[in-house]
């Protein structure tokens, strides 16, 4: 009944879908043209809203019938009331915000639960590039040069765990994904995931 073939869906989006309960109210921050929102509406029947900095992406999403507004995570989250959504989702956007800590705090305020996905800067390939080449890593996931990247606040999986602690968030679930966007299926300490995970998806709530 869904037009989405989940096997073709971006790895972190697939996991995000698993993290979100059916029929819930969802705000997708950094929703782009609304790909994930549409997926969540189609597969989970959510009441979905979106939010993106690019007006062009927003216009496209609205023309597709999605409820999306232009705004940026750093400045416009303050307008939303407490607990406005069951889930506040930040998919591959945290590293592009001016003040990630403040953004995460806002998310925890407006969402009863918060889902965050981000590229892991601590992956061993990144470490090797820096160690042996002495250059900022450029990979499939992080295709930008240091001077033109929108990703101004990179973090590693362990950094994110530490930030969660600092903003009094409890990690309910976490998944690390490999280079092919597949879930790393075994349980391992954070430092292992931090070495082999290309990206990670976290489900948080207020402590």
């Amino acid at each position, binding site marked *: 009944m869904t037009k989405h073939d989940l096997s073709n869906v971006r790895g972190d989006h697939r996991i995000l879908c698993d993290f979100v309960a059916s029929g819930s109210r969802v705000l997708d921050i950094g929703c782009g043209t609304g790909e994930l929102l549409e997926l969540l509406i189609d597969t989970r029947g959510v009441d979905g809203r979106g939010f993106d900095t690019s007006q062009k992406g927003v216009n496209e999403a*609205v023309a597709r019938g999605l409820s999306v507004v232009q705004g940026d995570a750093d400045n416009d989250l303050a307008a939303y009331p407490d607990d406005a959504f069951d889930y506040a989702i930040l998919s591959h956007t945290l590293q592009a915000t001016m003040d990630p800590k403040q953004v995460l705090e806002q998310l925890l305020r407006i969402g009863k639960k918060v889902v965050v996905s981000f590229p892991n800067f601590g992956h061993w390939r990144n470490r090797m590039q820096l160690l042996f080449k002495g250059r900022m890593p450029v990979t499939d996931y992080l295709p930008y040069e240091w001077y033109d990247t929108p990703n101004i606040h990179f973090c590693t999986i362990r950094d994110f765990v530490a930030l969660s602690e600092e903003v009094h968030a409890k990690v309910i679930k976490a998944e690390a994904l490999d280079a092919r966007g597949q879930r790393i299926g075994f349980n391992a300490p954070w430092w292992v995931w931090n070495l082999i995970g290309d990206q990670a998806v976290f489900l948080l709530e207020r402590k």
Partner: protein
Amino acid sequence: MTETASAKPEKTPNISPSTQASVAAAQMDMPASKLMRFDSDNPLRLDEGTELAPWQIAYETYGELNEDKTNAILVCHALTGDQYVASENPVTGKPGWWSMMVGPGQPVDTDKYFVICANVLGGCLGTTGPACTNPETDEVYGLDLPVVTIGDMVRSQAKLVEALGIETLFAVVGGSMGGMQVLQWASAYPEKVFAAVPIAAGPRHSSQNIAFHEVGRQAVMADPDWCHGQYAKEGKRPMKGLSVARMAAHITYMSDESLHSKFGRNLQDRSAITFGFDADFQIESYLRHQGMTFVDRFDANSYLYVTRAMDYFDLAAAHGGKLANAFLHSTTRFCVMSFTTDWLFPTSESKDIVRALNAAGANVSFVEIESSRGHDAFLLDEPELFKTMRGFLTGAAKARGIPAPGNGD
């Protein structure tokens, strides 16, 4: 705010100006469109504290109302618009003022939706306004008509919608003053509005906008033919004053960029400046033309009333100073639109609306459209505007469970 907009007068109206004025006069009490009359036992409560009765509202409809009465869209017109949103205006002979937006196969698709458009209260094409006959005196109201507000306009439309047997409107859409009415509808009758599309509007009339309106009203009132509002009795019309009012207002509907690219400093039918006060420049000639054609189709007192209604609009003030309070617990789906070069209702004002809707937890979309054509862009051929309207209404129709025209790329 103007259907002639910033387009040059390409078509010659098929009715001559002098006849236009008399045709317009005939439309005040007995419009060519549909008409709903409310008698003394169905008065219209007005914000100023009085009641209006009897009163009437002139409207047009397009398309078919479905059996469940769930596919009705109310289009609210701008300052000098009218009920002829998608059909020929009987005064000017011009096509409907939004026929690119409303009609069969258009974004507001009359093959799927039942579209209603009513002349506003205070207007001059059949709904009770200052140019109508006061039934108590059998003379034209003139300034005896109470000052009306956007809230009054919407209350009159709600009575019309109710009289048509429609409980919930699928959507209320409109630009500029029409957008103000959309916001007022969503705030005053949230349960009656499934979707709302305010375009190029704001939650209140700004000081700058009031200032421009005041210039226009003073121009009208400074015309000796205005006769303190009693010009109908005197057999006169304050054409010069109204024309100047329109010229000043028209500037606010365009952008510096569009004026520059359309007219620049080009001279009108001459090769050199004349060292006189004739219309040397094309822009002067254009504005004079806009002013002159306007007076043939619009009543001067109506212009005072309707501009005043816009000035008085302040949705936040009506809700304890907090705009979000106007939309608390709203289940209406909103789509707010603005244009980049609109300085009459700039994007910042649309964003105020969006922030308030978010704060109220409402369902909102917001699109800012790139256009060089200023405020008037909402009436012109702007593909992004049509695309957004079609997409939003289609999404809303799905949610409402009614057939939608689809995205028809």
